[in-house]
């Protein structure tokens, strides 16, 4: 509202719209949002991007370093020349006639084979697979895992917490004691046992992760519902004769949703991290599929020799997690500008 126009009434603006307008004033959060959107688009468009397949192996191209200018063949020639020159250097001589011939022959052989024209912006792994492609496809799986995991656990948490908080009494104590028991068990152990019993695949992984991580959500939702159900507008809704399902859906959930949205955003990174941890233990995504976690795990053994195999997936993951956290934090502040770090 401008100062010369005090008479005009502001348009109806919901708390959600207000929160959005506050969110867009937060530069870091908006920047993070763009990064996250970029990640999302790249992951979605992966099959159509001009990259190699993530499972395509070129065994000649093992462990090639990242290069913007040279293709695979040139890198191989360079590697051979480096080896020969290194040996010659140690013996204090220049390349022999024989060695030069060997190099030329190798070069000719490489030129004749079109597969050596492949380029690897981020290098290759131990089976000659393109790291760029693997990081992108790995990101796809990591992000989907994070999203589905967070959504599933929020859904379970919403249902359990909602029932527990709204109906209260015996149902509440029963459900909450159940949550307490699950809380007291080491959740990683549960996931590991689950994966060992039901087999190693992505669905089981998501299921196991969601199965142990809805507890915090349930408690959060229960607390909110408890305080909301005694609020006057819920009572007012009962006074006007609204039925219980109607109150839950129309009055209670919209008021819980803001916290749930924020919490989900903050939850996605923790799922990605958990998956990375499990992959690191060898319980996560299995080959030829990749996730950021499994890529890191593959690379750790040889990280001193081929550091790019570790750096790129790790960097991709760290940037994404960082941005997700900023995004979640930004959303939280936008929804609840008065509170200081409550979650």
């Amino acid at each position, binding site marked *: 509202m401008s100062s010369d126009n005090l008479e005009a*009434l*502001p*348009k*109806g*603006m*919901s*708390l*959600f719209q207000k929160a959005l307008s506050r969110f867009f004033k937060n530069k870091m959060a908006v920047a993070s949002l763009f990064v996250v959107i970029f990640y999302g688009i790249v992951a979605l468009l992966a099959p159509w991007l001009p990259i190699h397949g993530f499972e395509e192996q070129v065994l000649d191209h093992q462990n090639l370093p990242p290069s913007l200018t040279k293709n695979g063949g040139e890198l191989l020639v360079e590697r051979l020349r480096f080896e020969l020159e290194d040996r010659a250097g140690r013996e204090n001589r220049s390349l022999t006639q024989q060695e030069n011939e060997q190099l030329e022959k190798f070069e000719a052989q490489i030129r004749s084979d079109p597969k050596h024209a492949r380029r690897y912006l981020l290098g290759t792994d131990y089976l000659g697979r393109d790291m760029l492609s693997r990081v992108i496809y790995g990101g796809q799986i990591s992000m989907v895992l994070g999203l589905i995991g967070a959504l599933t656990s929020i859904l379970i948490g919403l249902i359990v917490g909602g029932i527990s908080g709204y109906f*209260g*009494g015996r149902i509440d104590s029963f459900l909450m004691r159940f949550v307490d028991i699950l809380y007291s068990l080491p959740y990683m152990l549960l996931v590991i046992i689950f994966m060992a019993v039901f087999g190693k695949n992505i669905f089981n992984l998501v299921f196991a992760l969601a199965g142990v991580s809805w507890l915090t959500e349930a408690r959060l939702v229960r607390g909110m519902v408890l305080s909301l159900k005694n*609020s*006057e*507008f819920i*009572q*007012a*809704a*009962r*006074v*006007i*004769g*609204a*039925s219980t399902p109607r109150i839950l859906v*129309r*009055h209670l959930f*919209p*008021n819980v949703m803001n916290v749930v949205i924020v919490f989900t955003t903050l939850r996605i990174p923790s799922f990605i991290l958990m998956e990375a941890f499990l992959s690191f233990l060898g319980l996560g995504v299995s080959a030829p599929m990749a996730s950021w976690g499994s890529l890191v795990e593959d690379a750790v053994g040889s990280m001193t020799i081929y550091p790019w195999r570790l750096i790129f997936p790790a960097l991709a993951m760290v940037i994404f997690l960082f941005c997700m956290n900023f995004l979640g934090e930004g959303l939280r502040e936008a929804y609840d500008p008065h509170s200081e770090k409550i979650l």
Partner: protein
Amino acid sequence: MMTDEIILEVKNLSTYFHTEQGQVKAVDHVSFVLRDGETLGIVGESGSGKTVLNLSILRLLPSSVTVHAGGQILYRGRDMMSLNESELQQIRGNKISMIFQDPMTSLNPYMKVCDQLMETLILHQGLDKKTAKEKSVELIKHVGIPDPKIRAEQYPHQFSGGMRQRVMIAMALSCKPDILIADEPTTALDVTIQAQILDLIRELTREMKTSVILITHDLGVVAGICDTVAVMYAGRIVEYGTVDEIFSNPRHPYTQGLIQSVPRLDGSSDHELFSIPGSPPSLVNLPAGCHFQPRCSKAMPICAEKYPPEIVNGNHRCCCWLWHRGEDRG
């Protein structure tokens, strides 16, 4: 205006809660009648059970905390106690509706004002969305909010406290209910707004011939707009009668105390304001006999022994040993 037709009859209503400390008798053997078009004021200190009484009438108390609910609530001859939840939903908001104390929290912050008004209309009058919307804009206009079309599209946080209370009134009266329960409708409002809101309630309920149960602890309000008054103390109605009777001829020492503690403009300014000594008893640990007896200046030995039976004098009912003859006191 006020007719003789009895619209709501509460007989011996009791509501007890179970707490860690013991049983709380929030409402204890309360009886009163509400006639068509009548405005009944329920006065009493905080914690005297006024709100619980009204929540009990609408059967809004969760059954999990109520250990004992006895008595009858007859709405047009139907016992509210025997109705099931869906029958109750038909009555709530439609036939009996309620306004709450705090307008700041009684509207859903995530819903447009018109959507909240429409909810009642759609639920009870079976209107389609378009007519309900038109009707809700009309209602907003009716309760005296300017620019109703724009206001209808706004959210509660864009309204002031008085305006929100107007919206609550519009919502409560949207189905032209038989009974409006107003639970301290002006307590949370600015003094200047209080009178406006009360006027609005009075005007609209007169127009719609709605009976009102007005809960308040402001005797001035009662004198202004009520026809009858029930004075509650520690969960019981201690005195009940017409406004004129109660104010001109209060019989219960508690009512007398209440009336004396109202500051008067015509009183001398160096006169100290009267207050009833002591504080209201805890509902868990009620004093024996008459609950008011420890604070009463006219207490007699019998007062600490037995709760006084009701003494009826025309329309004026009172529970106090003072008005019983000697032989009754036994």
